[in-house]
């Protein structure tokens, strides 16, 4: 009887040790297998991957390039605002088209949105973003493709989320409704400017009113 009790205690102890080990293992896995390291540090997506996230199959993606006139460039600058640089007259963008049993595919498909890619300097290094603009001219998606500054300066998904649904107006600015990123003001400023630049170019190019080349 005594032996049995000892044995059951021993079994219980072994069980407890196993349970502790299991908890430790799960805890370690949870801590280390959180959101991917890449998502917290440098490059996270290629252009192709980002486009596929924005316009998942069976949608089709059409690549286009707009060549702005001087007048159009000036208009984009005016729309973007005084502290936003708009310098390039060659703007490549991607139009997503719906494709399915009830909709034709390709260029004749219903436009889902337009994706623009933006590279700009944060502090001394660059980041690359993808902005997706809805047919109504509002930001529907922002993805960070590359971020080369130290990760503590990187904008969180929550911070990026405040840009969603916004159009080109006075609220889309750090003086408006966009909240600064504590400890990373240069990042928040750079992204807000980029979003204004993209929407200004979107208005000038009017890609969903312009027929495909």
């Amino acid at each position, binding site marked *: 009887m005594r032996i049995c009790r000892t044995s059951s205690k021993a079994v219980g102890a072994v069980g407890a040790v196993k349970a502790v080990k299991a908890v430790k293992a799960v805890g370690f896995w949870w801590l280390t297998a*959180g959101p991917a390291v890449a998502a917290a540090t*440098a490059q996270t997506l290629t252009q192709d991957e980002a486009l596929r996230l924005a316009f998942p199959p069976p949608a089709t993606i059409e690549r286009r*390039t707009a060549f702005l006139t001087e007048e159009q460039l000036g208009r984009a600058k005016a729309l973007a605002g*005084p*502290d936003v640089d708009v310098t390039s007259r060659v703007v490549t963008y991607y139009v997503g088209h719906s494709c399915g049993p009830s909709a034709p595919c390709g260029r004749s498909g219903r436009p889902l949105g337009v994706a623009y*890619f933006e590279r700009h300097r944060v*502090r001394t*290094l660059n980041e690359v973003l993808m902005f997706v603009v809805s047919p109504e001219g509002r930001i529907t998606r922002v993805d960070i493709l590359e971020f080369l500054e130290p990760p503590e300066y990187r904008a969180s998904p929550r911070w990026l989320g405040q840009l969603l649904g916004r159009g080109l107006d006075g609220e889309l600015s750090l003086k408006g409704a966009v*909240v*600064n990123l504590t400890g990373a003001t240069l990042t928040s400023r750079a992204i807000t400017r980029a979003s204004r630049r993209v929407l200004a170019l979107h208005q000038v190019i009017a890609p969903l009113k312009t027929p495909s080349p």
Partner: protein
Amino acid sequence: MRLIRWRRAGAALAVTAWCTSGLMAQEPDTTEIARLKAQIDAITREIEELKLGREVVARADTAQYGLGPAASKVYRAPEGVSLGGYGEVLYEHFREVREDNQLSGRTDQLDALRLIAYLGYKFSDKFLFNSEIEFEHGSTGRGGEASIEFAYLDYRLSSRLGLRGGVLLVPMGLINELHEPPTFLGTTRPLTEQVIVPSTWRESGVGVFGDVGDLAYRVYLINGLDAVGGGSSAASGFSGGGIRGGRQNAARALVEELAGVGRLDYTGVLGLTVGGSAYLGNSGQNRTVTTAGGSVDLGARTLIWEGHLAYQWRGLDLRGLFAMATVDQAAALNVARSLTGAASVGERMVGWYAQAGYDVLRSTRTGHQLVPYVRYERVNTQDRVPAGFAANPANDRRIVSLGAAWRPIGNIALKADYQFQHNEARTGVSQLNANLSYLF
């Protein structure tokens, strides 16, 4: 009639020939247009690649070094050096008289207070080095210094957990880790974050950090403060004015006593940071001191804790912080430091401030910011002193700062404020400050 037929036939032939020649001319044009289109497409792709970078535009399916597409990305991601920096110049104009109308004896000062270079290096997506090298007061030959503010290695296992080691900024308060002058209001740092949370406070150690949901944490094990100072220590020791002198600044630091420090911030609401931190460790560094009661091991256990809040919303900039420090064996520490009477180290130190600013140019289209602000601060570094010692009323201070910050761009700030300095000894000297700062 025949002539008419011939004429008709001739006309038809001419039309046919014209049409044919038109078609023949059109065919090469179409080919030419297609060729030009292809060339333009190639050029725009090159431009796009130059703009966005080869790494981004590269297709995800190009496996390298035998790795799968996703795993091979690390080999495409550019690595290397990251540079940055900031600096500030501070002008201080002191009143000629103190609160009690006695001559203050203070002289105005213009100081190249700080020039900092950030240097970072990314070995890979997981391993990073980050550092800050600081030059203070213009010249090391004239009372200035060159210091390592921080220099650490990060090993990021995931966003939830990273390991950090090296010279670390102690994660306390609002200023110590985020001290670039253009980012905060005020020409000088709040006094609470100079004497109770002694920023810029760095020590050597190791720790963990990460984000779990809306919570950000850091927990470090570092060398403890040195409350006594002197000898081989770089510290000068605690004083009646606070614990600032206990910093060892990672310079041949005594590590007879280790300390732990942890911080937790909630960032679940955009623009809001609310959290707290605590530091606990013995500051005696294994010294013994001979008091009237005999030889005593000087532990001088030091607990510092603080709670903070920062909120920015639509031009509004609010900040508040409360900090308290307690030091055990303060009487023995006074003996070790030969402090008597009102020069005693405080057994308890308390400080807090509240600050508000608003960008009055918010509704304009200009990118400039003009932020008038006010800060109210109370600090008492001798809130409680050990029996047999007295508190110096000059250490019970109240400061009201009124000023404005002009930021023509976010990286540059010109700040000016007037600080009404009051203390219970009525020896406060108010001052007018101007600060020019930049960061990049």
